């Protein structure tokens, strides 16, 4: 337990100390929120779909969690490069404890990032219909954070250098974001697109968050919850397994 806690705390400290990283990773969601929110807003309203910022905000929150979580998970490559990984691998703790500490730390960091973006959304006009919806929204945010950090840990355990990082961002993270229905409604989508949305794990996070806030689910709260919990469990197990096979 001690080991899980101290590794969790380490992730938090590293995050809190890298102001540049916090600011840089806030830039993208804010850009999307402002440029798309107000750029496409009038068209969205004319199509009879209501306020686009209100629709977009949960998607952008999910996006910021996705980016930060995968990044935190993949940070294992940095630890390998700068040597700290060896210190944890010869410590008298199981690999599972190390993975859990890291993943929970990364997920907490991603959740904090999501909350900051949530506050930014409030600042540009997003409104929560009822304050009691916040805990349910937070639960979905936390699930997305755990799932994505675990995926990052799994990917990071497979990589040996930084080159794989950029590749992951372009080939995994960006498609996950764009197909997740974060930016568009799912009604009347072409069949292939609708399939892609359903295959994208992040869609269930976006839907859970958006449904909680707006009341309109695409898949249903139970489905969203079940898919996220299931995938988080599978990815955590995979991440733990791949990490346990890592050599110093």
């Amino acid at each position, binding site marked *: 337990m001690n080991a899980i806690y101290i590794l969790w705390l380490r992730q938090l*400290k590293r995050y809190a*100390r890298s102001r540049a990283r916090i600011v840089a990773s806030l830039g993208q969601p804010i850009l999307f929120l402002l440029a798309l929110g107000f750029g496409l807003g009038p068209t969205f309203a004319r199509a009879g779909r209501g306020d686009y910022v209100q629709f977009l905000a949960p998607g952008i929150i999910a996006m910021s969690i996705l980016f930060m979580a995968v990044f935190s998970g993949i940070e294992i490559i940095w630890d390998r490069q*700068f*040597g*700290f990984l060896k210190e944890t691998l*010869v410590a*008298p*703790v199981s690999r599972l404890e190390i993975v859990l500490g890291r993943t929970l730390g990364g997920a907490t960091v991603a959740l904090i990032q999501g909350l900051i973006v949530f506050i930014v959304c409030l600042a540009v006009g997003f409104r929560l219909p009822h304050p009691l919806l916040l805990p349910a929204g937070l639960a979905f945010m936390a699930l997305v954070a755990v799932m994505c950090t675990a995926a990052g840990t799994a990917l990071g355990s497979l990589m040996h250098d930084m080159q794989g990082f950029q590749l992951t961002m372009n080939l995994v993270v960006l498609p996950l974001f764009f197909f997740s229905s974060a930016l568009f409604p799912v009604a009347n989508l072409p069949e292939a697109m609708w399939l892609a949305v359903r295959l994208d794990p992040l869609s269930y996070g976006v839907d859970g968050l958006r449904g909680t806030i707006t009341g309109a689910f695409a898949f249903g709260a139970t489905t969203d919850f079940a898919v996220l919990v299931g995938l988080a469990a599978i990815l955590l197990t995979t991440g733990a397994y791949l990490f346990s096979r890592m050599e110093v």
Partner: protein
Amino acid sequence: MMPMIEAHDLVKRFKSFTAVDHVSFMVPEGVVFGFLGPNGAGKTTTIKMLTTVLAQSEGRLLIDGHDPVTEPLLVRRLFGIVFQDPSLDDELTAAENMELHGALYGLPRSQRRERTETLLRLVGLWDRLDTYVKHLSGGMKRRLEIARALLHRPRVLFLDEPTVGLDPQTRIRIWEFIRAMCRDERVTVFFTTHYMEEVERVADRIAVIDHGRIVAEGTAAALRQQTGAKTLEDAFITLTGRNIREADADPIDRMRALRQASGIRR
């Protein structure tokens, strides 16, 4: 003397390549043991087996009477290690690195604080307690790593080239710290290095490994006598030859090494 490390007919194979080939040695408790050999001779592979990172293909290994393969978590409590490359978290302070290590090794908080103070005073870093590791010099980082490796009161300290890349002043200082701490805490030391004068000065016993086999074992004086060499460096060359070994280096590194070697001869 009680044996602290025992290796019997240790073998490690990687597919068709045998990195460690029937190696046997014994390190008595409280001894400073130098493990020497050219690059690619099997030093690091042996250390990895001693420290639970790799399992041997054959043979038997005991650390303070315990088997690293069957009791890895117990054995990990028995040793401290300073790796060849740095393994500190640069974004944390010296104190936080110590704290993290103490927590990983299950030390109670009060003990962590007390031990941290004792050890950091000993290595002359107590005034750097709250300095970020990234702001420490290379020598300071090494001293911090040695202090950290001793935090959980290990019985054995493994040092893989602990002084590589440091100036002579820092090297002498670091060895003074290692010797002082080991005297105070009765720790057995197992180290590798390429600096022969260092071995001569600090090692009680030496083993030389080459091509995965132990080619000589004894005190520095015995090794010099055995080979009829004036210095330990000459003895080492007599035992292991003049050829440059880059067993696992890539062709470019090999060429670089050859170029450097020919430059020295010129």
